[in-house]
């Protein structure tokens, strides 16, 4: 895999006139660690054939030679936030794609990370016909089986298409999806913007813990409500979901409502979502019965 990577075109600005992009990336990380621009660098490393997130440290800067970039995606920014919670002064460098960058913005807004302590290196991700490839596990949509198309929700659907079903059909389709849930908490655990120390989804008075399946649809709707103004549409939850629930679609709708109601674009703004602000600028009126 590394051989193949070395032939890739240059995704970021380079300092030297080396031929291999990958060497430049590694040199840059190495230099950052050596000169103390960052204390640690979060990237990926091949471990026994698996690209896994790895923390490169200034104690061992030459390890940066093993840094790789591929399709693997993890919430590096979530790891950064966890590390920063333990060591507030540590300077963290990390590889970012577009989705990571949006997540970082949300974490800055919610005071989970200090932007002054974070350095990023952008890597190639978003698909374009002009590019040979994109580095993202989400680029090729999964094919949806005929059964799921018939009774459930196609994960590749747009919000508008999902709204075209009749009310009863929508309900049945969503319940079919939610009922598959095995309550693994994978969606929450991978989510880069889920940082609460106490989670409603594990609160005995709100959602019964220790029973499977979870209460449908409360479990999923509670998470959906918490994603309003936070979800940055990275799709990691859907990647992580073992039963293929179209979470990304649900959270897209949630954010669409926030965008329509409050003109708030998650991940692009430097202020917190209007759900948490007491300001009186709402012009909403109660809907008629």
């Amino acid at each position, binding site marked *: 895999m590394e051989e193949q990577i070395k032939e890739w075109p240059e995704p970021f600005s380079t300092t030297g006139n080396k031929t291999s992009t990958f060497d430049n990336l590694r040199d840059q990380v190495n230099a950052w660690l050596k000169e103390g621009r960052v204390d640690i660098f979060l990237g990926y490393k091949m471990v026994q054939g698996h690209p896994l997130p790895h923390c490169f440290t200034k104690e061992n800067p030459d390890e940066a030679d093993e840094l790789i970039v591929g399709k693997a995606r993890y919430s590096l920014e979530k790891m950064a936030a966890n590390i920063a919670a333990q060591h507030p002064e540590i300077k963290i460098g990390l590889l970012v794609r577009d989705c990571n960058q949006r997540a970082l913005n949300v974490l800055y807004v919610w005071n989970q990370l200090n932007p002054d302590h974070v350095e990023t290196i952008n890597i190639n991700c978003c698909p374009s016909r002009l590019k040979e490839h994109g580095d993202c596990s989400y680029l090729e949509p999964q094919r949806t089986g005929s059964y799921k198309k018939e009774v459930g929700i196609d994960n590749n659907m747009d919000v508008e298409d999902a709204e075209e079903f009749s009310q009863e059909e929508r309900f049945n389709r969503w319940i079919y999806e939610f009922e598959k849930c095995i309550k693994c908490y994978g969606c929450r655990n991978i989510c880069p913007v889920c940082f609460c120390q106490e989670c409603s989804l594990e609160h005995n008075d709100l959602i019964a813990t220790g029973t499977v399946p979870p209460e*449908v649809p409360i479990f999923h709707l509670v998470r959906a409500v918490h994603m*309003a103004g936070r979800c940055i549409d990275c799709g990691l939850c859907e990647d992580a979901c073992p039963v293929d629930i179209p979470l990304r679609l649900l959270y897209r709708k*949630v954010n669409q*409502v926030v965008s329509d109601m409050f003109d708030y674009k998650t991940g692009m703004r430097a202020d917190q979502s209007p759900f948490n602000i*007491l300001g009186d600028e709402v012009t*909403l009126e109660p*809907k008629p019965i």
Partner: protein
Amino acid sequence: MGDCHYLYGNYMTIKRMTFLQEILKFMGLGGRLHLDWISSAEAQKFVQVVTDFTEKIKSLGPSPLSGELDLTVVEEKCQTIVEAESVEEG
């Protein structure tokens, strides 16, 4: 708006309620949640709103979430698809 006993309580409430109404509608439970501003001096309005909403809820019928979930439709469709696929495969 702004007349709330808890100062900004209704500003926060309307955001949440409007949002929740949209989400419930999206997943097929629309029309079952209602918000209105009624002061403690508006007994008649209270009666009117409660009566109207009760009528609406009655006309919607029982919530699909009450009782056992009915998945017979799903089962039937599943059966049709399994049959259709077995025919295709010969």
